[in-house]
């Protein structure tokens, strides 16, 4: 059986397990929706008070907000196994159990759980994203294909962070909350136009952790909004590819981590 079919089977089993208690599941979903939506009200009230900030109106910011949340929710849904890797696999020693199975560890960890709870974040992100487009006057036709492309780039970038976090567990399982700076911090940072950040941080978010490559620049291209910092609009058509590059690098790092684990046994 090929890896994709296997993944589908594992994902199916995980969905079944999550729906075993439908009442609890529904409540969690609603909770996820409401808590994430509340964070948008913070931004909304800011713009309600000041109208626009540094040339950005509420519509453009809503698009950024929606894009980053939709992307992150997809990564959360797929990458749960990596998120809990330290606590559920390394600390307990059950990573050995995975190594006993004749499959790639990445496939097995993806199959750990197809998490349904982030659907709440996905829905509210999609809702804000739609509102953002509705409020923006110059939405480009490119949006039709650029939107799924940017979401895909963003989702794999966040998935890359989760894989990188899991690979870090081979070195230490302590203090991994630091990585949340990149995941949840990334979601927070991605909600704002990067022109608001210092130059070093802008560079970091474009070239090291390509958050703006998957959110900010594609959003500019979709909204026909020229970049105040002078990056041409076509950059946003290509830049989501950097999310995939980031994922590939994190997968290589993961591989090194597994090889190190197998030779040190801890």
């Amino acid at each position, binding site marked *: 059986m090929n890896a994709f*079919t296997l993944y589908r*089977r594992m994902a199916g089993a995980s969905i*079944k397990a999550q729906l075993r208690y439908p009442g609890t599941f529904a409540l969690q979903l609603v909770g996820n929706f409401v808590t994430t939506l509340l964070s948008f009200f913070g931004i909304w009230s800011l713009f309600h008070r000041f109208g626009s900030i540094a040339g950005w109106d509420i519509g453009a910011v809503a698009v950024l907000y929606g894009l980053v949340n939709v992307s992150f929710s997809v990564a959360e849904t797929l990458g749960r196994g990596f998120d809990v890797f330290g606590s559920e696999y390394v600390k307990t020693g059950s990573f050995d159990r995975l190594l*006993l199975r004749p499959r790639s560890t990445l496939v097995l960890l993806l199959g750990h759980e197809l998490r349904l709870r982030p659907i709440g974040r996905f829905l509210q992100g999609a809702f804000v994203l739609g509102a953002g487009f509705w409020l923006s006057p110059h939405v480009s036709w490119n949006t039709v294909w650029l939107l799924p492309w940017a979401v895909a780039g963003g989702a794999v970038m966040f998935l890359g962070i989760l894989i990188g976090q899991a690979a870090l567990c081979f070195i230490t399982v*302590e203090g991994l909350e630091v990585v949340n700076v990149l995941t949840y911090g990334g979601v927070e940072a991605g909600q704002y136009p990067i022109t608001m950040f210092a130059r070093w941080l802008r560079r970091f978010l474009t070239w090291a952790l390509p958050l703006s490559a998957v959110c900010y620049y594609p959003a500019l291209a979709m909204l026909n909004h020229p970049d105040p910092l002078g990056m041409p609009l076509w950059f946003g058509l290509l830049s989501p590819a950097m999310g995939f590059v980031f994922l590939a690098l994190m997968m290589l790092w993961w591989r090194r981590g597994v090889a190190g684990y*197998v030779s040190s046994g*801890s």
Partner: protein
Amino acid sequence: MKTATAIEVRDLRKTYQVRDGGSWRGKTREITALDGISFTVPSGEIAGFIGPNGAGKSTAIKILSGILRPTSGIVRVGNLVPWENRIAHVARIGVVFGQRTQLWWDLSVAEGLALLRDIYSVEPERFKRNRDRLAEALDLNGIMDQSVRQLSLGQRMRAEIAAALIHDPDVVILDEPTIGLDAPSKLAVRAFVRDLRRERGTTVLLTTHDMHDIEALADRVIVIGHGRILADSPFEALQATTLSERILEADFTGPPPELFLPDGAVETERGTRSVTITFDPQRLPAPALVAHLSTFPDLGDLRIGRPAIEEIITRFYADHAS
């Protein structure tokens, strides 16, 4: 593919680097877990692999399972070097870790087995045959639809064994398969392993702390301690020497008197109200020893048992030192 030698281990060494004082700073120290062990297990044999905790048993098991790379040495399981091609190797072995589950807590036994079918790419026909055979032999038919979380330890262990064998492995590693089980479950597991070897010629490497497992199953016993092989002999040979020994604990209502033990028995420990005696039943049958002790009026309770593995190992050290 089956080979005449199922497991070959030659001069296997493993050292770990350990850091003193925190995970980042501190000097590294080398710990030798395996100090050059060699043994072979012919196809179709059940080999008992025993030794105290920290002897290097689990390190050896991990290397044989392909999840740990040794520092040096040669290992072949079938024709494969476990750590060189993990995926091809683990597809052909079955491993049961007594304290860890291979199944999924939230899924039923049947669902878990179906996922393992997909993971090991077992053809549907063969899967059905194996599942029915295993369910029958391990008495799983009543618990197939229960989630693993709800199973008792004995039920779970039987399900674990089925999970490890669903893909017809040639070599099976059982790491403490009877730990924590009640008596009927232990018997069921032993009977199953015996049949497995008889009917399918499966090679089994078994670690255990329970000498009854060894007695019931092992053709061969490999004793490991401090990372070295201390003994490697047919079960009968080991039984004739060390394993035949018994321990008798006698409680007294007051301080124990002088016992004047007959030949074949020695007092090994004396407490305020009890005495521990080690004896060899071939020289002094248990009833004779009991009869002798019964002549003491303040004798309370008597218990007869066998020495723990740790004690046998200690004996091996003593023998090897001399």
